[in-house]
C-alpha cells in the first residue's frame, strides 16, 4: 500500500470532505422543513391532504436514493418545457440535483419519524398541561416539543448517518465529494485500494463524530 498517494492528495480529500458536509447538512436542514409539516399532516382526516403526503412518503421511502438522483439529474433533460425555462439553470447542475434528491429523500424518512413520535405522544401530559392553564403555544414549547425531541433523537441520529452514507452516490454524478475525490485519485494513480481506503476512513471519522455528538446530546436531554 502506497500511503504517499493519499498524503499528496490530501487537499483534494479535504475539499471533498467539506462538500460532503455542506451537502448533507443543507439537505438535512431543508428536509426538516418538509418533514415536520408532512409528518403532522400525515395524520390529518382530509384525504386531499393525507393522500399526496402518503404517496410522497411511500415513493421516496420505497425506492433507492440512487434512482431518485438519476430521475432528477438525467430525467429532467427529457422535458423540453423544463429545459427552456429558467429552472434549467439549476437542473443542469449536479450539486442542485443531488441537493434536491437528498432533501426529498431525508424529508420522507424524517416525516415518518415525526409521525411516529406524534402518534405515541402521551395524552395525559397534554391534558395535565391544559389543566394547569397553559396556552396552546406554552404546551407546544414546554411539553410537546421537548418530549418529542427526546424521543425522536435516537431515530434522527440514525437518519443523519444514513444520509452521510447515502450521500456517497453524489460522487457518481460528477460531484467531487469524498467519494468523488477518491474517484479522481484512482483515475490519476490507478490505486483503487489506497484511494477508497482513504475515503472510507474519512466517512468513518464523520460517522463516529456524529454518533459521539448525539450521545452527548441525548445524555444532556435525559438529565432534564
Amino acid at each position, binding site marked *: 500500500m502506497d500511503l504517499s498517494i493519499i498524503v499528496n492528495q490530501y487537499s483534494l480529500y479535504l475539499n471533498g470532505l467539506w462538500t460532503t458536509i455542506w451537502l448533507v447538512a443543507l439537505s438535512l436542514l431543508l428536509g426538516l422543513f418538509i418533514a415536520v409539516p408532512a409528518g403532522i399532516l400525515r395524520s390529518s382526516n382530509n384525504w386531499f391532504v393525507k393522500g399526496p403526503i402518503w404517496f410522497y412518503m411511500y415513493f421516496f421511502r420505497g425506492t433507492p436514493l440512487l434512482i431518485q438522483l438519476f430521475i432528477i439529474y*438525467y430525467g429532467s433533460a*427529457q422535458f423540453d418545457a423544463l429545459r427552456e425555462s429558467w429552472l434549467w439553470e439549476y437542473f443542469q447542475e449536479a450539486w442542485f440535483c443531488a441537493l434536491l434528491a437528498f432533501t426529498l429523500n431525508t424529508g420522507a424518512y424524517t416525516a415518518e419519524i415525526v409521525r411516529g413520535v406524534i402518534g405515541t405522544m402521551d395524552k395525559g401530559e397534554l391534558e395535565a398541561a391544559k389543566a394547569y392553564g397553559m396556552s396552546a403555544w406554552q404546551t407546544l414549547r414546554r411539553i410537546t416539543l421537548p418530549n418529542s425531541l427526546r424521543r425522536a433523537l435516537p431515530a434522527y441520529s440514525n437518519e443523519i448517518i444514513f444520509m452521510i*452514507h447515502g450521500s456517497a452516490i453524489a460522487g457518481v454524478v460528477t460531484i467531487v465529494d469524498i467519494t468523488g475525490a477518491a474517484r479522481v485519485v484512482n483515475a490519476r494513480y490507478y490505486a483503487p485500494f489506497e484511494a477508497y481506503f482513504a475515503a472510507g476512513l474519512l466517512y468513518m471519522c464523520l*460517522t463516529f463524530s456524529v454518533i459521539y455528538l448525539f450521545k452527548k446530546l441525548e445524555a444532556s436531554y435525559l438529565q432534564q
Partner: protein
Amino acid sequence: MAELQSYQGILLDGAWLTLQVALLSLVLAVFLGLLGALAKLSHSTVLKGIATIYTTVIRGIPDLILMLLIFFGGQMLVNDLSYSLNEWLNELFTTYNPEHEWYSFLPDYIDISPYFAGIMTIGFIFGAYMAETFRGAFMSVEKGQLEAAAAYGMSKFKIFTRVMFPQMMRHALPGIGNNWLVLLKTTALVSIIGLQDMVKIAGDASGSTQQPFTFYFAVALVFLFFTTVSTTLLKWAEQKYTIKTR
C-alpha cells in the same frame, strides 16, 4: 412508451438479476449475521474483538465505498497476491533446479465478476447489521427457558435448534425485515461496478432513446413493487409469529 415496450424484456431480465443479487446477499448476510452475533455473545475475547471490529467498521463506511473498495481494491489485492506467490514458488524451484523455467502455478490474472463481487459486498455489509439484530434477539430469549431445556437433559446443540433459535427468530423478524428493505435498495448500487442489472440497462436505454425519465421512473416503479410485496409479506409473517406466542 413505445420505447419502454421495446426494452421490456431486457429490463425484466435486469429486474430478475437485481432480485437474485438481493436474495443471495440476504442469505450471506443472515449467515454472517448469525456468526457475528454468536461471536459477540461468546466468552472468547478474540472472537468478541473480531466481531466488534467487523460490525463497527462496516457500519461506519458507506456501502458504495465498501463496494468499490472490495471490487476494485480486492481485485488488485488478489492479483498481487497471486503474482507474488507465483514469483516465490518459481524462485524456490530455481534454487533447487537452475534450469527451471517460469511457470504460472496460479493464474496471472484473476477477474472477479461484478455479480460475485456485488453479492459478496452486499452480504458482507448487511452481515454486520444482521449481527446487531441477532445479538439483540438472542439476548431477549428468556434464560429460564434455556435452563429448563438443560434440565430436560437436552444437548447444547438441541437447546440451540429447538429452544434458542426458534424464539430468537421471532424477536429478530422485524429487524431482519428492516434490513432486507434497506438491502434491496442498496442493490441498485451494483450497476456502478458494471453489473447489467436493471439500473444499468435503464441507463443504456435512456442513452439511446433520449428518454431517461421514462426508464429511470420505470425502474423506480419496479423497486416500489419489490418493497411493497416485501412489506406485505413481512407484516403477514410478523402477525403469524405473534399469534403463536399467545
